[in-house]
């Protein structure tokens, strides 16, 4: 068997074995589903409750990606302003740091006072996703090869030419790193804020389903919602990893396999 197949099959086998052990333990010890549901029970719940869960999944996805989009636009624009004018960086970086270091769970109740439920959740997700994108992009813009910067100066390139031809491409790997972190954080921010908000009805996301299932002791549905959140997080990560490989494949060390 070649190494490539083994690299995929081995983790898959271990994962399936773990699920099998879980299933067997629940069956042998006769653990009731309101304590710990078996994987098969979680799967059937996922199918049976799909209408409710998929509506909530859609809400969570929409909030996560709107927040991420806002964080990308805000983070990149601010990073470019930081790179072009040092005084902008000095003036505004403290705000970015304050936003980053204050735990989002602590800010959420305040935002809920000022904003309507779903907007507050969106802002929370934005706040946590914003900083890694801003700081990574700013670092990338500042990391352009000094000799190339000298060369630009020699050719009398304008500040914007320097940004467009040199600094932005040089920052791309850093930005993509920030995007991978920010993508995961946007989901976490959306979940945390929604738990704090506890909003019900049509606008309820997956986090609300978890809270609600907890109150009703509907543990299989709680697990089903958790599965959906994990899968979403994994898909976000994979999407951005693939995007990195596509964009950086031909030139950046991070996207290349070493030939030994």
């Amino acid at each position: 068997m070649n190494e490539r197949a083994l690299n995929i099959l081995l983790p898959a086998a271990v994962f399936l074995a773990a699920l099998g052990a879980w299933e067997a333990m629940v069956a042998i010890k006769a653990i009731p589903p309101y304590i710990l549901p078996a994987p098969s029970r979680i799967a059937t719940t996922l199918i049976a409750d799909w209408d409710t869960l998929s509506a909530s999944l859609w809400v969570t996805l929409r909030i996560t990606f709107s927040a991420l989009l806002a964080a990308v636009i805000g983070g990149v624009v601010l990073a470019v302003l930081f790179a072009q004018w040092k005084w902008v960086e000095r003036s505004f970086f403290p705000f970015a740091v304050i936003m980053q270091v204050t735990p989002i769970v602590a800010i959420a109740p305040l935002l809920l006072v000022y904003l309507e439920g779903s907007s507050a959740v969106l802002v929370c997700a934005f706040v946590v996703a914003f900083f890694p994108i801003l700081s990574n992009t700013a670092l990338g813009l500042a990391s352009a090869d000094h000799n190339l910067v000298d060369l630009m100066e020699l050719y009398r390139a304008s500040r914007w030419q320097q940004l467009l031809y040199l600094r932005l491409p040089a920052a791309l790997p850093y930005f993509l790193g920030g995007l991978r972190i920010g993508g995961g954080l946007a989901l976490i921010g959306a979940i945390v804020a929604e738990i704090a908000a506890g909003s019900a009805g049509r606008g309820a996301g997956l986090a609300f389903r978890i809270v609600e299932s907890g109150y009703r002791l509907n543990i299989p549905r709680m697990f089903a919602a958790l599965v959906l959140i994990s899968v979403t997080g994994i898909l976000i990560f994979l999407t951005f990893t693939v995007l990195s490989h596509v964009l950086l494949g031909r030139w950046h060390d991070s996207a290349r396999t070493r030939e030994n």
Partner: protein
Amino acid sequence: MMQQSPQAGLNVVRLRGIGKTFSNGTVALAGLDLDVRAGEFLSLLGPSGCGKSTVLRMIAGLTKPTGGSIDWAGGAERPELGFVFQDATLMPWTSVFNNVWLPLRVAGVSKAQAAPRIEQALSLVGLSKFRNSYPRELSGGMKMRVSIARALVLRPSILLMDEPFAALDEITRFKLNNDLLQLKAELGTTVVFVTHSVYESVYLSTRIAVFAARPGRIIQTIEVPAPYPRNDEFRHTPLYADCCRTASHALTGAMATEDHL
């Protein structure tokens, strides 16, 4: 035979009383005078830390002197310059073709308009076949060729080179030395070449300025009166040996003035 530009022998740029003192008080250069003559191949030879690279960067306008003056021929603006660093300093995210396009792109020339000039620059360094390659896919010597093509694409009247071959292996360096002489003969460009190798400076140059360190200054200039084209045969001539000996002596003298060695 060597093509000389029309005003051969005239000064292209004149440096007078150049000094550079860093903010920490280190005197990098003091009272340095240097003329670059049109059409010559001038080497700045010296131990590391003697300020020869600083002089090159000052000619390029990348470093400002703290004293003295730099005057271009006829009191004009500085002409188009080409600069080659010790590293190839290519943009890793784009093709060889786009890397050579950069100086023209900054000057506002579209890719289509620039294409013939880029092709020509690439063929000068023998890399036409690699126009679509990425820098990662090239060897060290090939990357340096791309860097030279980029420097030549604007047809600069002066080519400034900062130890361009120092990081390459000897075989590649010899090959690139010959190619550089060939280019110089074809284009008639004035070259200012920073090196710490006596042999390289004698092989390539028509004139060598030997630097001493702390503070950086020129202690001797040596003419190398061998005609172009030169080839490996030149390395076996008595003139080559003589010039190497003179340059080595000057360099030893330069080192002797340093108290810490």
